[in-house]
């Protein structure tokens, strides 16, 4: 996947902007990465390389820190952000099955974004509505009792732009509890 020249320039100039406000040393690494992600939505490889170069540390150190913390992502958020809950209640109720279904249907792994950037998939911890487990949050909207059939329903809804129809609330998939 080759990145268009203009996108590269945007990344480099944005990272340059961020770095202006920091002391260029290893201690600034985490706050710099947070700011970069705030601006770009994720940490592109090019951005991490620039941060490493300007802070004067090996690129692998930047990658090591970024891959340690859940808050950093290496892929751009999709137009539709799908977050599968892997909190205790959801995990036990089959959250992994929901995640597997999304991975299979979207042909990406957790933490990735589809090539057309339409969907991104990630796992989150308890989102606070365990009674509806397993829970999936789609574009900030909570879907409960997500079975593999419901996964198909959710994706179909997003494809046809009718996300509001047939959520977990109306009982679909509930018989599987």
């Amino acid at each position: 996947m080759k990145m268009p020249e203009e996108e590269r320039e945007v990344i480099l100039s944005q990272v340059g902007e961020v770095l202006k406000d920091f002391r260029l040393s290893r201690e600034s690494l985490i706050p710099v990465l947070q700011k970069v992600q705030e601006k770009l939505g994720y940490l592109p490889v090019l951005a991490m390389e620039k941060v490493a170069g300007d802070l004067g540390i090996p690129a692998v150190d930047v990658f090591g820190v970024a891959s340690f913390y859940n808050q950093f992502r290496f892929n751009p958020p999709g137009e539709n952000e799908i977050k599968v809950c892997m909190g205790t209640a959801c995990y036990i109720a089959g959250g992994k099955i929901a995640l597997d279904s999304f991975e299979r249907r979207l042909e990406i792994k957790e933490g990735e974004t589809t090539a057309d950037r339409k969907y991104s998939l990630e796992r989150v911890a308890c989102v606070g509505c365990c009674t509806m487990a397993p829970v999936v949050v789609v574009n900030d909207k909570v879907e409960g009792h997500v079975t593999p059939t419901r996964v198909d329903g959710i994706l179909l809804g997003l494809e046809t732009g009718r996300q509001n129809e047939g959520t977990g609330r109306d009982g679909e998939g509930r018989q599987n509890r």
Partner: protein
Amino acid sequence: MSAEVTLTIDGQQVKAVAGEKLLFVALNNGIYIPHLCAIAEEERPSACCRLCFVEIEGLSRPVTACTQKVRDKMTVRTRTPKVDRLVKTGFELLLSDHRLQCRTCPKNGACQLQMVARERGLKLKTGRFKPLAKDIPVDHSPETFSFDAGRCVLCGQCVHADQNIARVGAINFINRGLKRKIGTFNNRCLRDSPCTECGLCVKACPVGALTFKT
């Protein structure tokens, strides 16, 4: 500054320089204590392998010898029931996500895990813990060596060699938890990293994870 101290390890009187780390004092005096992660010149050791436990008189619990500075009149025991239990458990945990195939391993015979097993009468197999097979492919991309992450014990010796001795910065710890491993920037193969193939990391590796090609 460097006052000399006298301590007792397993009944043997030993002289050392105050401030030295107990583990290396013992090793230099021919007393074996299992260890994988300790680096002599490291002021603050990571103490991550959990194999170098000893009991020190006056301390209620076993402590890691790689983090203890020697003091005058210290009395140390390297083998006690508590120590043996901790080492056994730590060793089994290490083996539980280790691709154990000594017969075909390039490090067979010179491996520090085998050394620990031999010295402490431990078995080289996973007992109580469910094996967590690591299916990470071997990186054969360098001309002179290979990296088999499935045999890595995450001791950090290679990172020290790469970052502080060779001063290259090709490898480090990446990810967290069960996915933690030694890696390169963006998970590139070593050939596409800044690695210069100086070989220092390979020489530092205590097990069969980093090995020279023959």
